[in-house]
């Protein structure tokens, strides 16, 4: 224990002998660690927004469908069980959020224009926290209940259709017999979304109204349940599986939107790669610093060895010196990262590339996400790899021959 204290003290003093070199190395480590964490937080923030948006556009972490529905999202592929019966089971199961709805392709037509859309027949009270629509931010009003006779469409769609709140539009879809089901609706509200494609694609109507229009009685195309974290949907998934029979399939969100699922996995991998790449770039400087420090001290290391210090202590001393350097650099880097991310928490506006971000599936405001796991990962990777990087110079120093080292002239 005592030797460790001595070694620690020696290492600490040695570290500051060439303060310039130590400062430069500290600056490099700090910048590297800052970049590791900062970039990771931005990336995680982007992925987080993408997944959140993606999940809220689906929406639902775990979804129940007819086995054919995913391939053929048609009104014929209804969930065989009656909606009221299944909904009662879901209501009793105690999910954070759940809903049942009809989701079918349709055509919406105003006096002058037609567009293909996705028609959602919903119970507005169930969906409040499920969808990407902010009920408070509606021109006009949102649907009031599942029997509401109006429709709510996106602002962008209203603009292209040349329609507005209070005007009528026609919705066409098919019923299970493939007869065209069409009906005039009054637009009661316009919603906004953070991505234009959402405003163009989705049309909300009351579930019962749509059930009647499409003549499907007490049936829906999907039931969804939501947990509190999109990264942890297994508990919800298992609960849902228990509630249904095998006339339906149950999917997690990342199975339904494989792009998002992949994105999440790829980005987790990216974080590790990024951290390692930065470390490797740093490692050259770290080894360089240690090598210089060792070679400047050839004589005194020889002297210590001659005085009877064990080679292992020399080894330990150099490694401790390197670890001290890393720990201080990590501390500064972490503080810098936290300090530079904090002011960005209200979001970074990247709307100059909004359409490009939309192509990737992301909105134009980026909220950096500083995750404890990522910070720990960065710190641990640096310390472990740093340890291995210092082994070689430390080993070399401990192998000096005392006499040679003392008598050495540069």
């Amino acid at each position, binding site marked *: 224990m005592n030797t460790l204290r001595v070694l620690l003290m020696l290492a600490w003093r040695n570290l500051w002998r060439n303060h310039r*070199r130590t400062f*430069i*190395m500290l*600056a*490099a480590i700090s*910048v*590297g660690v800052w*970049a590791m964490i900062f*970039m990771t937080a*931005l990336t995680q923030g982007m992925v987080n927004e993408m997944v959140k948006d993606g999940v809220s556009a689906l929406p639902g972490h775990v979804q129940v469908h007819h086995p054919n529905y995913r391939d*053929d*999202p*048609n009104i*014929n592929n209804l969930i065989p069980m009656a909606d009221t019966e299944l909904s009662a089971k879901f209501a009793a199961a105690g999910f954070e959020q759940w809903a049942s709805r009809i989701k079918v*392709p*349709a*055509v*919406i*037509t105003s006096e*002058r*224009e*037609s*567009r*293909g859309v996705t028609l959602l027949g919903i119970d507005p009270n169930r969906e409040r926290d499920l969808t990407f629509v902010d009920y408070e931010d509606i021109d006009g009003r949102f649907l009031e209940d599942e029997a509401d006779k109006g429709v709510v469409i996106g602002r962008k769609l209203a*603009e*292209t259709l040349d329609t507005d709140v209070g005007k009528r539009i026609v919705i*066409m*879809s*098919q019923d299970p017999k*493939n007869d*065209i089901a069409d009906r005039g609706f009054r637009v009661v509200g316009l919603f906004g979304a953070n991505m234009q494609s959402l405003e163009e694609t989705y049309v909300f109507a009351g579930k019962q109204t749509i059930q009647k229009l499409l003549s499907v009685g007490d049936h829906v195309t999907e039931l969804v349940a939501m947990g509190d974290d999109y990264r942890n949907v297994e508990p919800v998934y298992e609960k849902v599986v228990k509630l249904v029979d095998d006339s339906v399939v149950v999917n997690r969100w990342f199975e339904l939107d494989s*792009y998002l*699922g*992949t*994105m999440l*996995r*790829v980005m987790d*991998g990216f974080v590790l790669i*990024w951290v390692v*790449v*930065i470390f*490797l*770039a*740093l490692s*050259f*400087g770290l080894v*360089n*610093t240690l*090598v*210089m420090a060792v070679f400047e001290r050839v004589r005194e290391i020889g002297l210590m060895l001659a005085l009877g210090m064990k080679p292992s202590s020399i080894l330990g001393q150099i490694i401790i010196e390197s670890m001290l350097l890393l720990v201080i650099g990590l501390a500064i880097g972490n503080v810098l990262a936290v300090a530079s991310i904090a002011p960005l928490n209200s979001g970074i506006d*990247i709307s100059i*590339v*909004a*359409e*490009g*971000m*939309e*192509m*990737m*599936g992301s909105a134009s405001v980026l909220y950096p996400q500083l995750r404890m796991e990522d910070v720990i990962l960065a710190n641990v990777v640096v310390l472990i790899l740093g340890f291995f990087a210092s082994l070689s110079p430390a080993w070399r120093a401990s192998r000096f021959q005392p006499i040679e080292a003392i008598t050495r002239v540069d």
Partner: protein
Amino acid sequence: MNIILRLAWRNIWRQPRRTWLTAGAMVFSNVLLVFMMSFQFGMYSLMIDNSLQALTGHMQVQAPGYVDDQRMRQTVADVGDLSRSLREQLASDTIAARAQAFVLASSDERSYGIAIIGVEPHFEQKVSNISGLVSKGRFLSENDAAEIVVGAVLARNLRVNIGDELTILGSGVDGSFAAAVVTVIGIFDSGVPDLDRTLAEIPLGLFNDVFYMEGAGHHVVVNAPTVDFAPALQAELEALLPEDADLVVHDWDRLLPGLKQAIQADLSSSFFMYGVLAILVAFSVLNTQLMSVLERTHEFGIVMALGLKPGRLGRLVMLETVMIGLLGAVIGALLGSILTWYFSFSGFQIPGMEEMAIQFNLPARLYPQVTALSLLLGPGIVFVFSLLAAVYPALRLRWLQPVDAMRAA
């Protein structure tokens, strides 16, 4: 060889390990940069080509405002005549007229809302690759036939095959009811989910009759030999348009704004990362060169006493940095291009990237190619950062007094 060059060269090898570690940091970054940039730049041009060749083309002549809302009535009058005259005037046949509507398409069993495009069958084949992607049946041929080509997913969803009939229901340009029965003659499989699921093409003549277009259409696609020639062609094209016609030409960036922006967003985040790497290399160089200057204080004092001015010594330090920098740049660029070269044969695939690739119209496996730009840009950046890092150690010499310097051990 010049003594100064010789001196600089020998100086960097006084501490070979230190020089190699410094150059090593450069090599590491450069290998990474050359490979990544070759990969990215190749990917971008594929993204652009693949996205444009299906429908968008290099530029389009449209009515003003159509680009934003694509309203049915924002038409180009006599679109067939316009495309014919443009073909003649520009002596090019990669020019084709189109019209577009959103309709409900019904088969016996299914109905879906789709986008339907009226095309000039003969010329459409020259501006779009969809005709070449017909995997079943054939592409459109006659301008008035009641025929339709649909995307593969759409065909599956509608449960139709070659020879089946589809009913299309929508509104004409004047808002009146429009309907037609057409026969499926071809199914295309572009691999782009959005197109395969929602797109169908019919002859422009048929479109004209069904939607009461009276000769009007929605745009004329104009392609240059490659995307690089597009701006020049656009200028030529704009000059040709009749003054009174009230038409605009939009380039692909305006037509698909997401594309360039996605590239920009990707580029800026990558360049942040590359910048960080370059800065870390710069710190390495700063450390090495500062140490090397400090070690040589006594020696510098002697040569200053001999009458060498500090500026000259500064230049010597910069020269040494240039040498280490060139070492790192050349070895890095070489290894980087060997790595890229290897992947240009074997292809490169990030595990699980297929879905992301599809999102951006890319094949799952990419074959990065080394270009002059991807070879030089990264090592160039690292080199410049290294030189900047050496400025401080070099400038320090300005404040060096020969007497003090010589007193240093």
